């Protein structure tokens, strides 16, 4: 029915009294997600959201009291690694970091700690995990999607919204939408998501949205070739023929990056993935 989270998931929010954490906890409540509480060190014992959500000082306290097994993180970038390590230490199964722009070496420490744990990290810089009708564990706009049998995985958050919105307009429902995050170092990657979608009985087709930088789409293509039997539709943004025109203008301080032309789409086509030339072409390919 879904991957990473389910109707049984008990979701907590780290940083629930912050501006963003508080707002999106409200949104999640509105979407009917099973939110069980949150943390805000120093405010343990208080309640938030009109008394609907208990606040705890630590993840340990929250997990002990609420049996939370999913945590959505909204704390500032400088303390995000600490928040993730805290959730790993408390055995939280799925940790979703909405916060992005985390220091790279902090993320290296986190990656190394994840290897020796049973936790899965989604993000950082992820829009979350959306299972329409069940849970919006993150910052997806509400009512952006309805239940169906297409799984979506994307690095970019906004493109996640774009594609799911497009699918909805065309009457296509989704099983789970996973934003794996667009920071340079992230937790769960394409292959693991593909593996989960492949095993999920309610996912019939998979949409993969890629972008420039790194080689994760190449790894995805290799994984698909060897392991995925369900049809995969891909769209790689920023890899259009003329992108090379832009190369000389890219700024020193910004984070846009460029790939060799067609490197990623080429690898995906080699793996028998149907590659959409435009995002808006995807619904037609799904229906074909």
């Amino acid at each position, binding site marked *: 029915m879904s991957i990473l989270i389910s109707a049984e998931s008990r979701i907590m929010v780290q940083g629930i009294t912050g501006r963003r954490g508080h707002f999106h906890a409200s949104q999640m409540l509105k979407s009917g997600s099973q939110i069980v509480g949150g943390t805000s060190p120093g405010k343990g014992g208080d309640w938030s959201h009109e008394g609907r959500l208990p606040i705890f000082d630590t993840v340990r306290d929250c997990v002990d009291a609420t049996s939370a097994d999913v945590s959505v993180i909204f704390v500032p970038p400088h303390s995000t690694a600490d928040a993730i390590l805290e959730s790993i230490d408390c055995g939280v199964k799925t940790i979703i970091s909405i916060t992005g722009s985390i220091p790279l070496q902090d993320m290296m420490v986190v990656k190394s700690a994840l290897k020796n744990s049973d936790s899965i990290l989604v993000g950082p810089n992820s829009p979350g995990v959306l299972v329409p009708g069940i849970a919006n564990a993150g910052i997806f706009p509400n009512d952006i999607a309805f239940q169906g049998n297409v799984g979506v995985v994307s690095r970019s958050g906004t493109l996640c919204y774009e594609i799911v919105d497009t699918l909805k307009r065309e009457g296509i429902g989704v099983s789970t939408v996973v934003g794996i995050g667009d920071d340079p170092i992230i937790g769960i990657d394409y292959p693991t998501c593909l593996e989960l979608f492949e095993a999920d009985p309610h996912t019939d087709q998979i949409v993969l949205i890629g972008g420039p930088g790194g080689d994760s789409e190449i790894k995805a293509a290799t994984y698909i070739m060897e392991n995925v039997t369900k049809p995969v539709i891909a769209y790689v943004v920023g890899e259009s023929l003329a992108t090379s025109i832009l190369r000389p203008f890219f700024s020193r*301080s910004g984070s846009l990056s460029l790939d060799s032309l067609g490197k990623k789409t080429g690898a995906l086509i080699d793996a028998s993935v149907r590659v959409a030339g435009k995002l808006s072409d995807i619904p037609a390919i799904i229906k074909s």
Partner: protein
Amino acid sequence: MKLQEYQAKSILKKAGIPLPASTLATNAVQVKRIAAEIGYPVVLKAQTFEPGRGKAGGVRIIQTESEIENISNEIFKLVLNQHPVQFILVEKAFTFSKEYYLAIFSDLDAGTPVLRLSEAGGATYLEPDSFKNARVVDRPININLGLQDYQIRGLVTTLGIDPSLWKQLQLIAHKIYDVYRHYDATLVEINSLVVTQQNQLFALDTRISIDNQSLFRQESLSDSLDQSYFGWEERQALKYDVDYHSFPGEIGCMVNGLGLAYLTIDQLISLNTLPAAMIDIHGGATSTSISSSLEMLLLNPRVKAIIINIFGGMTRCDETADGLLQALDKGFPKKPIFIRLEGTNDDSGLDLLHKNENLSFFGTTEALVNAAVGWLREEEE
């Protein structure tokens, strides 16, 4: 953030890595005085972030005092990619028998630091081609364990480096790893590490890049962020924590998120159009940073029309609208604004904006970009 050569060298010197004597100069007279202190021969090195310094004549070996002022002045007259050379590093010139490349860099796909040793002295990690035809050995480092002696031994024995150099190399490797960790670097490079006739290792040239996302905790480096090097827009972007890119087109763009930035550019390019600027306000931007971003586009004389493409998740559309109105109310030049505003709180955001006459509204990226390019085409005719 790349550090200038002289900044990198000062960090490595403080860390105890053996470097040739060097001092920074801002004019030819200073260069001459420093060279006399250090002793000839010296190397003059233009300090710049731009590539191609060597080819442009920005690195010169000076044997005698007679030629130094003329050559210094030549270097100070260089303009590399529109940036004039402001500083010269005057450095003791070295003779050496052999050179190596030694670096710690961040492997982002693997999520680990990597120790690299190569025979390609003078190469750089930033240009993979520079290692062609040279032997290269990499060792990933478990950041929670730190760099271990045996990993360094693995490198030196694979490359067959003389055992008499191991201890020095081990010490230098540990020190650059410490610098990498301490300064939140993404790259600490010694290129090249040379062996002198006395069998001593010296770091002849170095390169350090710092993780931008860690600058908040690198107070000692905040002065190094050479803002004079950036234009007004780039400085504004740093101030408001948005991403700013300048292009040679006529349409200014503001989006939330890298994905939408690429999507918008792709769509522009499919219509044979380039942007003038692309501002990524990131997720969850505040009204202040949104207002400042629009201001940059309104004030940019090259920008004839503006595309705003927001699909809000963490970015709230009501807050976006608020920020946009702040800039629009300031009496800047009026420009046609093509906007798509969708996602979290879009209803209240659109309500706020609907009365503004400069704005036209669209439902998809495709429609948005098509309309902006269509308007531009009409203007041009």
